[in-house]
């Protein structure tokens, strides 16, 4: 067996053990499986919501962006810093209302506030459409990295099956607590490995981080270090694109269902608020990850596609096989950290928002949990199929869904802060926003100025939400009572 595979296997066994262990701590109810009986403290929330930072994108996409587009990659630091701030106000409200009404997802809250099953199902469908390609990318990342670490001994399909087979076992067995315990382990593993390589690689090739940047600044690549960096074709990126990509990502950040629904798992308001306070510290972790990408610019020119620059370096930098194995384990942790949270959220949203509203009679706890588990296996199987069997490109679907998720934001704000908003207004805004977003995504030449398509979508969304709400009958006051609380946060 290649030495590189040993740290990966040790990591997988540890993750499985940690994923299975907490099952005994939660009740055998929907609340226990979906929300860990609403007991998550700040540390667990911090690492569970860290999935946004610690995904396959962190170890593969982040260095890839720095390598091919230079300072453009700085946008990752910025949007993650600001994106969680709305959650400081929305999270505690969602938690209190969710606990009072027995809800676990954002679509349930929206559906109740607007008295609209159609709106609830629309938000749920949008969520699942966004989550499946996201999960597919995580599974692809795992298959790729295990194939590299095993020198081809484990083909991509087998590596992905091994890792995600284990993830499926602990997600099915332990639910929310399994996801959160493993998140802490994976988060620490990634932080340590990220910093280790972010400092070691520049030292090995240039004698230090400052030497690396000075070498880049003195050569023909100096332009890539100046914000906003380069675009996808290697020409200087414009400020329109850079700034608007940040704004859309900031707005969409906390709307992702696998984040927002974690407010329902929090033990109290303080846990959520303190998690948001600490969240920017996660962004600092991305700095060494970007440095890894910059290291490769002069040392390994011409790697294509850019997202494979880290595995390429691991194979060709003459590193000790133990170090290569360690970096591979870090990438596995990155993928699985996000993957398990997505699987758990997609299964929950699918059953609670997609099936329950249409189910002819109330479902007991036992059946609900069973259905959620069945759906988790189904969704993972679909994502696995796309990851290893289908050759269809998912990039456009993923891009479309990113813009689509940001369109939930105005609906969420209206849910909590605007009494006059109506179901018709929220539905018109959501669909109008998604339509405009997709229109400019697929026909970028039609944009008046080169802003991110999500900005056009959000503008249409807010205009429609306000206009249609004001033209339709206000929502019944008794329904709004559950959302009426003294105080603002």
């Amino acid at each position, binding site marked *: 067996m290649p030495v590189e595979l040993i740290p990966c296997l040790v990591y997988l066994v540890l993750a499985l053990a940690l994923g299975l262990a907490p099952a005994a701590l939660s009740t055998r109810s929907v609340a226990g499986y979906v929300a860990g009986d609403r007991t998550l403290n700040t540390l667990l929330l911090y690492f569970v919501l860290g999935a946004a930072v610690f995904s396959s994108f962190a170890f593969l996409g982040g260095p890839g962006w720095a390598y091919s587009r230079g300072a453009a990659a700085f946008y990752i630091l910025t949007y993650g810093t600001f994106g969680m701030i709305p959650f*400081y106000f929305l999270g505690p409200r969602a938690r209190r209302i969710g606990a009072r009404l027995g809800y676990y997802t954002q679509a349930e809250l929206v559906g109740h506030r607007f008295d609209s099953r159609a709106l609830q199902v629309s938000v749920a469908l949008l969520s699942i459409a966004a989550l499946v390609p996201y999960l597919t990318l995580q599974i692809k990342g795992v298959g790729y990295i295990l194939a590299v670490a095993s020198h081809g001994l484990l083909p991509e399909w087998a590596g992905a099956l091994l890792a995600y087979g284990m993830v499926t076992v602990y997600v099915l067995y332990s639910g929310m607590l399994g996801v959160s315990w493993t998140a802490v382990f994976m988060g620490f593993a990634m932080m340590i490995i990220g910093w280790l390589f972010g400092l070691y690689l520049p030292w090995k090739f240039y004698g230090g981080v400052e030497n690396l940047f000075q070498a880049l*600044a003195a050569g023909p690549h100096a332009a890539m270090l*100046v914000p906003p960096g380069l675009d996808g074709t290697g020409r200087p990126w414009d*400020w*329109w694109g850079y700034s608007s990509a940040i704004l859309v990502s900031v707005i969409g950040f906390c709307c992702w269902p696998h984040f927002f629904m974690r407010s329902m798992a929090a033990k109290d308001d303080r846990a959520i608020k303190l998690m948001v306070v600490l969240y920017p510290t996660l962004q*600092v972790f991305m*700095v060494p990850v970007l440095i890894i990408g910059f290291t490769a610019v002069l040392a390994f020119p011409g790697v294509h596609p850019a997202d494979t620059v880290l595995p390429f370096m691991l194979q060709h930098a003459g590193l000790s096989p133990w170090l290569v194995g360690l970096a591979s384990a870090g990438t596995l942790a990155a993928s699985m950290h996000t993957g398990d949270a997505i699987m758990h959220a997609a299964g929950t949203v699918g059953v609670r928002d997609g099936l329950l509203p249409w189910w002819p009679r109330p479902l007991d706890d036992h059946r609900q949990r069973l259905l959620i588990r069945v759906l988790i296996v189904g969704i993972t199987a679909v994502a696995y199929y796309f990851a290893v069997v289908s050759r269809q490109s998912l990039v456009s679907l993923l891009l479309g869904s990113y813009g689509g998720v940001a369109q939930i934001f105005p609906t969420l704000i209206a849910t909590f802060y605007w009494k006059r908003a109506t179901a018709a207004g929220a539905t018109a805004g959501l669909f109008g926003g998604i339509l405009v977003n997709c229109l400019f995504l697929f026909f970028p030449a039609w944009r008046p100025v080169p802003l991110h398509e999500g900005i056009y979508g959000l503008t249409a969304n807010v205009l429609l939400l306000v206009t249609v709400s004001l033209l339709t009958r206000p929502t019944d006051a008794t329904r709004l009572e559950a959302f009426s609380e003294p105080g603002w946060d």
Partner: protein
Amino acid sequence: MQRFGGAPLRHRLFLAAVLLVLVATVWPGYLPAARIEPFIFSLPFGLAWLVFCIACVFAALWATYSADMRQSRGRDAG
């Protein structure tokens, strides 16, 4: 349900501070910092600037959180 107009002063100040830092990380606020030199903590200036902005957001969040906790303790005691 409360409107944004009902926000306490410390939350308005917090949002204003966060918006200010956000503007410093996009066009046009980022323009003066969009350069390579001087290097700070081994990082090019544009990157060190963003790390500084992250620290500012963290400080603003911490200050607001501390005030919120004092307020809720005061409410509980009262």
